C-alpha cells in the first residue's frame, strides 16, 4: 500500500484554550495516499519538525494495519 504524504495546506492558527489563554499552532492538512484529509496541529511553542513527522509515521503504521 502506497501512503505518499501529500500536504494540501500549511498555516498558522491561534486557538483559545479552555482556561481562556490563546495558543498558537501550525496546522497541517495532508493526505496519506488515498486516505484523508488528515489535520494535525503542532504547537509553535517548542516547535520541532520531527513532531509532525512522528505523527505522520504513526498514522501510516495504523493505516497499513487497517483491513480493507
Amino acid at each position: 500500500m502506497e501512503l505518499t504524504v501529500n500536504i494540501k495546506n500549511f498555516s498558522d492558527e491561534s486557538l483559545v484554550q479552555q482556561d481562556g489563554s490563546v495558543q498558537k499552532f501550525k496546522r497541517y492538512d495532508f493526505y496519506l495516499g488515498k486516505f484523508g484529509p488528515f489535520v494535525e496541529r503542532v504547537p509553535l511553542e517548542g516547535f520541532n519538525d520531527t513532531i509532525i513527522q512522528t505523527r505522520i509515521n504513526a498514522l501510516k503504521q495504523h493505516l497499513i494495519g487497517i483491513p480493507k
Partner: protein
Amino acid sequence: MTPFDPSACLAMLLAFYPVVTPAALALARSERPEYFAAGLIFGSKGDKLQLPDGRVFDVIQNAGGLPGTQRWQMIEPGPGGGDEVFPLEPGPLTPIDPGPDVVVGNAGTFEALVGGALESLVGAEGVLDSAAHRVTEGIAAGALIDGASTELDDVEQVAWEIGVARSADELADVIGQVDELGGAIDATDADYDEPPPQPALPSEPGIPAYPGDDGTDGEPGRENPRHPEHPGPSHGDD
C-alpha cells in the same frame, strides 16, 4: 467542512489515543474535530458517531465490556452501510426451492359454491316424504303406548289394594297377639293376690341408759342413784 474518512479517523484514534474509552473518544472529538466532520457522539455508552448526513458509525467495540477489552473500530451497521470491511463468505446452506405454485380450484366464487350445494339437494324431496310417512306410523304407535299406560295404571291400583290388605292382616295379627298377652298378664296378677307381708323391724336390744342399769355397778364402791340397794357416793347431804 472537512469530508469524513472512516479510515483516517480510525488511524488517528489508533495512533494518538491508546486507551480505548468513551472519554477518550470525546477527548479526540474535542482536540481533533476535523476528523469527525461535525459528527456527534451519542449512544447509551457514548460509543457511536452520527454524521450530519445521517450515517452512524459504531466506534468502540465491546463498549460495555470489561476494561481492557475495548477496541477502536469504525463500523457502519445496518443495511446499505456501504462497502463492508469484513464481508461474509457464502455459507454452505442454499435457499429452499419453493416448488410449483399452489393450484387454485375452479369454484372460486361464492355463487358457484351455493349453486353446487342446491344441486346436491335435488333428491331431498323423496327423503322428506319418507320421513313424513314414518311420522304417521309413529302416531299409531302412540295409541299402543297409551293403552300400555292404562294397563300400568291398573297395576298400580292392584298393588295399592294388596298393600292395604296386607296392612289389615298385619293389624289383625297384632290385635290377636295383644289379646293373648292380656290373658297371660291376668294369670300372672292372680299369683300376687295375697297381701304383701309387712316388713319386720329388728328387735331393739336393751341399752342401759346409765352405767349400772344392767344391775352392775359401773365403778366398785360407787352407789347407783337409781338403785338404792346399790348406793353410790353421797353428794354432801350428810
